[in-house]
């Protein structure tokens, strides 16, 4: 087999997604109007196939593909799984939701697969050039998906806002890549790590500027303060299933690339940036949680909640880099929490995607939940479980995840940051329990669409949240192996 084919075989999940994306793109042009079910089924099968491919390769030792552009290791596999699961759950909701809001566009599924291919690229990239290109593949597909309902002004606004600000932040990030290249002579994360190690972990001004600009780019993608302004408008305006993908897959992929750069490439000189991460994490947790308190629209509330959770995960990143990584027990907390975050958001958005009015618009005002506990007890129970997990209460995966996050921060000596996080989490309990008050203590007749697939997604997420909340050790061990695989 020629060496290129070896690389292609290693990157099989990405190749599968890209190829099927192209197939669906052509099919969408040929089969008009879009046949019911076929596109949805094909894309579900593709994402499931990619998941299987990632799972099959998970036992392999770390391997470089395409002359070091990709690094297929446990870290990449873990975050690829998180992104693909997020994508699969979002896909489960997509078809019937798009039917309800009156969008019949076959290209949507092609864009979805392209976006997932970009996410996998970000999870595996071992070169800043590939990180950037993958990020753009993912983002461009998401921008278009945000505005896919062109008759809805808010959706178009959401897509346009995300596009303009995203393009701007990409440019800043690219500038940072150029600076890092100038300082270290390479865009390969491995070479950057070597060059930092050989200079005794002492970063020059050029590198500091470059890393600062990179942090701006990543900070925008994970929606961390002060680069979070876009999130509420974009989350609220975009179609609910696209928002679900943004809250799960995009977040996981962005944190994968961010984590690989901070832990893998810059770990040698962590002292320089853990301070910056500290400030970003603290501000993000506070602004996200406090902003969510006053929201009455559920999608907007989940936007602030996603900002807050970006803060928690930045706290994990900060504590890993502070503790010199290897000796820290809580090192897997970042990955574990990411997976928990995917499950609880996917479950919550499964319910939100059912909240549409007869005109085909989203009706996600919190008051619309009134009486859900009586009329749809199972939906209400599932949503409550996700909210409890988001709030970080037992017996859910969110509780275990938060526990390890805070343990890691305290273990790394970042008690102050942990206290800020605890304050934010306490505020979080209020706004996560508020929808439950509406569901169980107020009377009303909620308009909820019937959709078996959304119920399936909610059921699977809820079950996993409880199972992994009670028996977290296997996932924790996997998360630990994953993050360790990226060090050195």
């Amino acid at each position: 087999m020629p060496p290129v084919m070896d690389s292609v075989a290693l990157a099989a999940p990405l190749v599968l997604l890209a190829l099927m994306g192209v197939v669906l793109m052509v099919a969408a042009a040929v089969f008009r109007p879009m046949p019911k079910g076929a596109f949805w089924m094909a894309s579900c099968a593709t994402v499931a196939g990619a998941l299987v491919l990632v799972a099959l390769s998970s036992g392999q030792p770390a391997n470089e593909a395409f002359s070091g552009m990709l690094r297929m290791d446990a870290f990449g596999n873990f975050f690829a799984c998180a992104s693909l699961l997020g994508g699969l759950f979002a896909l489960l909701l997509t078809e019937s939701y798009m039917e309800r809001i009156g969008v019949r566009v076959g290209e949507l599924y092609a864009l979805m697969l392209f976006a997932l291919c970009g996410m996998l690229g970000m999870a595996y990239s071992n070169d800043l050039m590939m990180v950037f290109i993958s990020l753009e593949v993912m983002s461009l597909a998401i921008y278009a998906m945000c505005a896919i309902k062109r008759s809805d002004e808010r959706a178009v606004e959401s897509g346009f806002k995300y596009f303009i600000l995203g393009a701007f932040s990409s440019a800043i990030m690219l500038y940072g890549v150029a600076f890092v290249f100038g300082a270290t002579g390479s865009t390969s994360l491995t070479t950057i790590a070597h060059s930092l190690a050989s200079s005794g972990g002492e970063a020059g001004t050029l590198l500091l500027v470059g890393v600062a600009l990179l942090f701006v780019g990543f900070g925008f993608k994970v929606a961390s303060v002060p680069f979070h302004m876009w999130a509420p408008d974009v989350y609220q305006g975009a179609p609910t299933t696209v928002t679900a993908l943004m809250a799960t897959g995009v977040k996981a992929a962005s944190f994968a690339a961010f984590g690989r750069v901070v832990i893998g490439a810059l770990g040698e000189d962590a002292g320089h940036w853990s301070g910056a991460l500290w400030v970003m994490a603290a501000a993000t947790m506070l602004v996200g949680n406090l902003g969510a308190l006053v929201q009455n629209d559920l999608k907007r509330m989940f936007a602030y909640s996603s900002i807050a959770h970006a803060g928690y995960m930045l706290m994990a990143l900060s504590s890993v880099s502070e503790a010199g990584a290897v000796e820290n027990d809580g090192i897997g907390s970042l990955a574990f929490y990411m997976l928990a975050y995917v499950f609880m958001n996917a479950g919550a958005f499964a319910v939100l995607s059912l909240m549409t009015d007869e005109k085909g618009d989203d009706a996600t005002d919190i008051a619309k939940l009134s009486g859900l506990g009586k009329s749809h007890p199972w939906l209400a129970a599932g949503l409550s479980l996700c909210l409890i997990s988001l709030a970080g209460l037992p017996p859910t995966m969110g509780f275990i995840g938060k526990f390890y996050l805070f343990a890691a921060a305290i273990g790394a000596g970042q008690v102050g940051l942990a206290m800020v996080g605890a304050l934010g989490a306490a505020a979080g309990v209020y706004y996560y329990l508020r929808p439950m008050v509406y569901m169980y203590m107020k009377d009303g007749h909620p308009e909820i669409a019937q959709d078996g697939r959304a119920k399936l997604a909610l059921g699977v997420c809820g079950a996993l949240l409880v199972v992994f909340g009670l028996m977290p050790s296997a996932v924790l061990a996997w998360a630990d192996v994953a993050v360790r695989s990226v060090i050195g």
Partner: protein
Amino acid sequence: MTESVLFYLFSLLAVVSGASVILQRSTIASALSLVVCFFALAADYVMLDAHFVAVVQVLVYAGAIMVLFIFVIMLLNIREPGATPVGTLSNRGIIGLMAAALLGVALIAGLDGLVHTPVTAINVDLQGGQPAYGTIAAMGEELFRGNYLLPFEAVSLLLTVSMVGAVVLAKREV
């Protein structure tokens, strides 16, 4: 010998068509003269062994950018300007002529220095010491067999995605 004859021929063509760009009265004729100028320059690049630059020149400038120009001209429907009497010079024309004269003097002064440098020295310097530098073969080697295969393919995926996105958002409802 043939090469330098061709080089000067294409250079002359570039200068003539360049002049035609600013002398034509109709905008579309100007734009088409610019196409000729771009092609002539691309031919000059080939003579200078910068094959890749030549290809990019044709693809990007003569291809994409010119199509854009002509689209804009057609969309805006720019009329031919009303008859200005030939032979009169406006203030702007005089200032333009002076600027062109200054640029010409500067260029001749700069070229004068180049002419007296041995040609071989310039060639080696331009080619970075490697005879194949700048050829399509060297570029292709890097892109398809070297380190940049994956980024190259990924960029083509990126372009596909942006095209699908643009079409989905811009096409009329059917």
